[in-house]
């Protein structure tokens, strides 16, 4: 209530004023080789944003009793900023009042801790029979976040509950060490963990890490590569989605600068950013109080849209797209992706395989980085298999996929089997991590660099 009255009190002193409050509670149970570390967190952060003569000033705190001072600080810094920057900003925002929540069937923070520990202990025990497995790390994460956006005519609350399980397994044999990692996540309650088959997933992870111990080094060079849905998701998020963020367009640090309306990709590619898809990037409103509507970024290979926050939309004279997001109210909102969606193509997985005489099939990822200016990318594959004459052959280890985005996009065939990743994915940009998701099919890249140990 105090924040609403301060919005009223100071709204006349600037051109636009808003506050974002994040109230979160979480619990992490980390179990490594039977040793547990249990962590609980409880945070309240609010950030005030004032616009004065086209300039933003932001101030934040964890202490609500200092709110009046924080409002004044935001106003002061906006005024100071206006001495250094002359521009006009038009804030295009519809007044909205709403309360949205993902109601979990089972609140993950009220579940008996012993039940969670028991599940993790059992998960670890599944690996006991194989002496090659040297380290088992299971992490169970539960979070509840309530976020409240208030401006003079909007008041929006959204509540999210998220549960995730992450596992990392290390094995060694005859001096060779390999590890594997996987995460599983849902927006929702503990019912996901209740239904999660720890034994089955432990077996899959054990098989995978043992397979990696026997895997060969890949042949280095340029090859056709089939990516599974999660690697496709990573590629389109990192290499393409970021290039569509309007702040990168404005600073000319995107490969897509000045290319709107141009054919930038194979006509098989239609790419969307869609916060309404049921994956971990889901939300109703962005952190600037804009309704999340979704955007088409590439339509049949033609670049059609950019992702905006309020500022970039005004500077580029376009509509806000509901992508202004923050990690916490202590940051300024940046244009960010939500769920990256590659529309279904026409190729079945078998048909894609048949296209490859000598190449690789990469599954899952360890991570990825892209240079936004040149479009060069480097993604680490979690699993990789060689493909010989249209058939999957033996496994390879420590494989990296590299290339250049603009060249790669023109040479992609799109599969007909999209599915949500359901990973606990976070995307980092300017030191801010936000949760994201994707829904993509298999793709075939005609030529990419396969890296690994020579």
């Amino acid at each position, binding site marked *: 209530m105090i924040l609403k009255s301060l919005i009223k009190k100071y709204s006349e002193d600037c051109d636009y004023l808003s506050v974002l409050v994040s109230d979160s509670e979480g619990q992490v149970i980390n179990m490594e080789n039977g040793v547990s570390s249990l962590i609980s967190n409880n945070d309240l952060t609010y950030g005030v944003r004032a616009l004065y003569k086209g300039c933003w000033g932001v101030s934040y705190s964890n202490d609500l009793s200092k709110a009046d001072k924080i409002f004044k600080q935001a106003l002061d810094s906006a005024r100071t900023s206006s001495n250094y920057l002359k521009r006009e900003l038009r804030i295009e925002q519809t007044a909205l009042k709403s309360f949205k929540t993902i109601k979990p069937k089972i609140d993950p923070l009220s579940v008996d801790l012993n039940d969670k520990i028991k599940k993790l202990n059992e998960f670890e025990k599944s690996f006991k029979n194989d002496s090659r497995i040297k380290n088992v790390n299971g992490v169970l994460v539960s979070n509840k976040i309530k976020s409240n956006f208030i401006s003079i005519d909007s008041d929006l609350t959204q509540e999210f509950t998220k549960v995730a399980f992450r596992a990392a397994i290390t094995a060694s044999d005859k001096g060779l060490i390999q590890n594997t990692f996987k995460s599983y996540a849902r927006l929702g309650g503990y019912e996901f963990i209740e239904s999660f088959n720890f034994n089955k997933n432990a077996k899959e992870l054990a098989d995978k890490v043992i397979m990696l111990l026997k895997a060969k080094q890949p042949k280095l060079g340029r090859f056709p590569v089939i990516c599974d849905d999660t690697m496709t998701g990573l590629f389109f998020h990192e290499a393409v989605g970021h290039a569509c963020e309007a702040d990168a367009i404005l600073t000319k640090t995107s490969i897509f600068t000045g290319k709107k309306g141009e054919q930038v990709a194979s006509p098989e590619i239609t790419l969307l950013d869609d916060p309404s898809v049921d994956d971990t990037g889901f939300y109703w409103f962005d952190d600037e109080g804009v309704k999340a509507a979704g955007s088409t970024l590439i339509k049949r290979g033609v670049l059609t849209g950019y992702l905006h926050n309020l500022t970039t939309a005004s500077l580029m004279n376009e509509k806000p797209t509901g992508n202004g997001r923050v990690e916490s109210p202590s940051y300024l909102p940046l244009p960010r992706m939500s769920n990256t969606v590659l529309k279904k193509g026409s190729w079945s997985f078998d048909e894609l395989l048949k296209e490859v005489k000598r190449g690789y099939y990469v599954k899952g990822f360890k991570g*990825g980085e892209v240079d936004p200016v040149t479009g060069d990318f480097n993604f680490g594959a979690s699993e990789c298999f060689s493909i010989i004459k249209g058939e999957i052959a033996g496994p390879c280890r420590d494989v990296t996929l590299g290339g250049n985005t603009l060249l790669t996009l023109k040479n992609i065939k799109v599969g007909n089997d999209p599915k949500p990743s359901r990973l606990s994915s976070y995307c980092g940009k300017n030191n801010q991590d936000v949760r994201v998701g994707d829904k993509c099919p298999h793709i075939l890249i005609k030529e990419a660099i396969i890296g690994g140990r020579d």
Partner: protein
Amino acid sequence: MEEIELAIKQGRRYGDVEAKLTIEDEIDVSFENNKFKDVNLGTTVNLGIRVTNGLKHGYAQTSNLKNWRRCLINAVKLMKASNPLAIKPVLNNNKAMPKSSLNKKIDGLGINELISLSEQAIGSANNFKGVGVSNSIISKRTTNNYFSNSEGINANYKSNVVEFEIECTKDFAKGYDTRCSRELNINFSDVGLKTAELCFKSLNPIKIETRRVPVVLDYLAAENMIDTLAYNLLADSVIENRSFFKGKEGQKVTSEMLTLTDEGQLTNGLFSRPFDEEGTKTGRTLLIDNGVLRGFVYDLYTAKRAGRKSTGNCSSLIKRPSVGFNNLIVKAGSASKEDIIDNSLFINQLLGTHMINYISGDFSVSPNNAFLIKKGVWTPLKNIMISGNLFELFNNIESIGRDQRQDNQIMTPLIRFKDVQVIG
């Protein structure tokens, strides 16, 4: 601070208690397209409480100091449910000498001064052959650290730092640099000029064929590779079977040119601190001495398990064990920059180092701003990868530069490696 004293007092009935309070004031000023963009300032509070009883422990954190009691209760609740540790942990009972190291020059910087410093860098970059500054940010951070435990240790220290990042672009070329200082000894005009030069030199890159060449890692790239190697020097990696160096103490593990030390109290070191997160006095730990593995860094728990003393390297109360570096220093060599980079593939930055399998050491990473340098002529390269094995790489050091730089926990000179696989 009253809250941590109360938490320690009330928490004693449940077991051993440690509390760490951090209050951080920050001002960030951002620039975009050669111009000032916005200001963001505020304060972040973090109170962490760890409770230990026998073999059990739990940790809770809050940003709301008024919630200290709930935070304590949460830690106790988690402790009761936890699996037992392998050994009973100990608390630090040696008082570290608190040192306040606020730099007065940094302390005096306000928004206007931060803008003026950044403008020096942006101005000199803009004056270089049409290069633009796409993004830049300058931050001033002042941190107050308080630590207490139920052994009667109460300590605190303050520190402040200035961080600066700049990204220059021209056409499809980019240059990036970052500097961080606790004494404000950054030459902003020079950083701007050098970053613009790097961007300009990267224009019109060419492709090369797959081959093996000598590689020189510039500061940022060397920091990334040292960082990956150093995971193997953390005692928790060793105890949990995640270290390639396990059981290799006293053996030659890298080229004899490499000497690595962790220093907690280095004057003006970016991560210097009088005591670590458990209140243990920080010091100097020799890790690799002329290629021979001499030791690891420990927190109290890993030290007790290994029958050693903590080296003052606890990085957090959150997990047990939790080990990290203070200032990890690569000893300088004797080569000048001109000598070390000639006839090499010179790499300014590397993409993908965080994905390296640091235990097996196998890597394939993508250089950013990479050049073939021959007799002083720089040829920019595009879309290449370098690959190999981290441990073999560090056994193949050809020479080490004489000037060190620190931008994060790692202080390193330029490092030149023999015969590295490049995929073109």
